[in-house]
């Protein structure tokens, strides 16, 4: 394996993880907010459904996606009419990674939002901010630690996604071969040295992501949580 191949696999993995995380960020955060702030009929069923990709075997998720997105699936036909190919492209890897990462981010967001005292939001409303402004200026900043950790978990889960990805994206070198898939196929080929090099790249990526997240959070002990002012009633 050349440095170019290693970079190609690492770059693809990074791209898959970044695209997957970025794509699920808005809906997963929105859903987390919904679960944290509203009660409605069928909420626990909805929560269980969202958690499903987390508890199902990834291969089962992959099969479901394959049936859904494959050319004979209900959505695959639509894509191919539009001239878009998904299955066995890196988009498929990103979709698989996104789907398995979604529950992690949604659940972490839900918990982070639930920990935000709603009185801050009410106060912000009285200061003239619309609900949307309140979300971006108060709720999200107060929950940012939890949401960011959720995004980090989803991202690192995406980096390591194997089961679902192998089914919907295949292991096509240079196209869909992410680090996890590359490690597996190289172990199968008894190329242990290359497999270890890919493992090292995985480790470096995960470590970099975690350090970046920690740096972003600033390590400020009390800055992120509203703990300083709570419990004084």
């Amino acid at each position, binding site marked *: 394996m050349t*440095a*170019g191949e290693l970079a190609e696999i690492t770059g693809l993995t990074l791209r898959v993880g970044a695209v997957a995380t970025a794509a699920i960020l808005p809906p997963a955060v929105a859903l987390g907010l919904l679960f944290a702030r509203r009660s409605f009929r069928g909420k626990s069923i909805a929560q269980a459904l969202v958690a499903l990709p987390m508890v199902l075997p990834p291969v089962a998720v992959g099969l479901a996606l394959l049936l859904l997105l494959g050319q004979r699936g209900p959505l695959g036909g639509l894509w191919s009419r539009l001239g878009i190919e998904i299955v*066995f492209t890196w988009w498929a890897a990103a979709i698989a990674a996104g789907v398995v990462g979604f529950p992690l981010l949604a659940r972490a967001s839900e918990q982070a939002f639930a920990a935000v005292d709603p009185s801050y939001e009410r106060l912000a409303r009285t200061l003239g901010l619309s609900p949307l402004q309140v979300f971006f200026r108060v709720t999200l900043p107060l929950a940012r630690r939890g949401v960011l950790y959720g995004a980090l978990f989803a991202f690192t889960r995406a980096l390591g996604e194997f089961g679902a990805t192998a089914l919907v994206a295949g292991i*096509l070198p240079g196209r869909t071969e992410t680090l996890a898939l590359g490690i597996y196929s190289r172990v*199968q*080929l008894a190329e242990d040295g290359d497999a270890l090099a890919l493992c090292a790249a995985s480790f470096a990526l995960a470590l970099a992501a975690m350090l970046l997240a920690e740096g972003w959070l600033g390590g400020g002990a009390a800055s992120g949580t509203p703990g300083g002012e709570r419990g004084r009633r």
Partner: protein
Amino acid sequence: MRTAGFVLALAALLARPAGADELLVAAAVSLREPLATIARVFEAEHTGARVQLAFGASSTLAAQARAGAPLDVLIAADAETLDALAAAGLVRTDRRVVLAGNRLVVLASAELRIPLARAADLARPEVRRIALPERGVPLGHYAREWLAGVGLLASLAPRFVITEHARATLAAVDAGHADAGIVYATDARAARSAHVAFIPTAGEQPRIVYVAAPLTNARAPALAAQFVAALARADAQRILVAAGFLPPPDETSR
């Protein structure tokens, strides 16, 4: 230097659009080394063309093709796999090429204390695990065909360790996870600690053929057809034979 190259390549890759003259060739994993050489030769002859190789069990690759993988050329280790795809209209039969033949060998791990000289030796109690792929994989199919022919399939079946494809079978015996394994003669060349114990006799050998065809919906149909055709040419044939493959047997003699 490797690190710098890695970073540069990574940066280039993150911005890289999909190549225009790119061929994705999916091939039986046993063809790994010679096909890599053939692809390089092909790239040298076709300026701008880039051949991307994906190796796996022929059955896995066929499943991917059926599911819509963007493959341009498929090379399988048996005729049936491609025939089935052709029946589904997924590969072009008019460009189909038989490029090579092969033989089965029995590998013994370095740890196995007894010598193996014939099929019946596989039944000895010291041979606790025998590596081979599942039935759907061409090698698995060929291995079972041979064992059935010598009347050992049923009695040895409990000792089977199922591997993913030909190279994984080799790796399993090399690593000592299995005491013996059934692989192609060509794969045995890549063995590190395992050794060829014996070669089933010509009479026992199943008929092994490698067949290539372009996919019906290849993105670069002309280039795909050229690549398939190139496999039958003399230079490619020399490379295959040098790697231990047999020349393509006459298909009609089946």
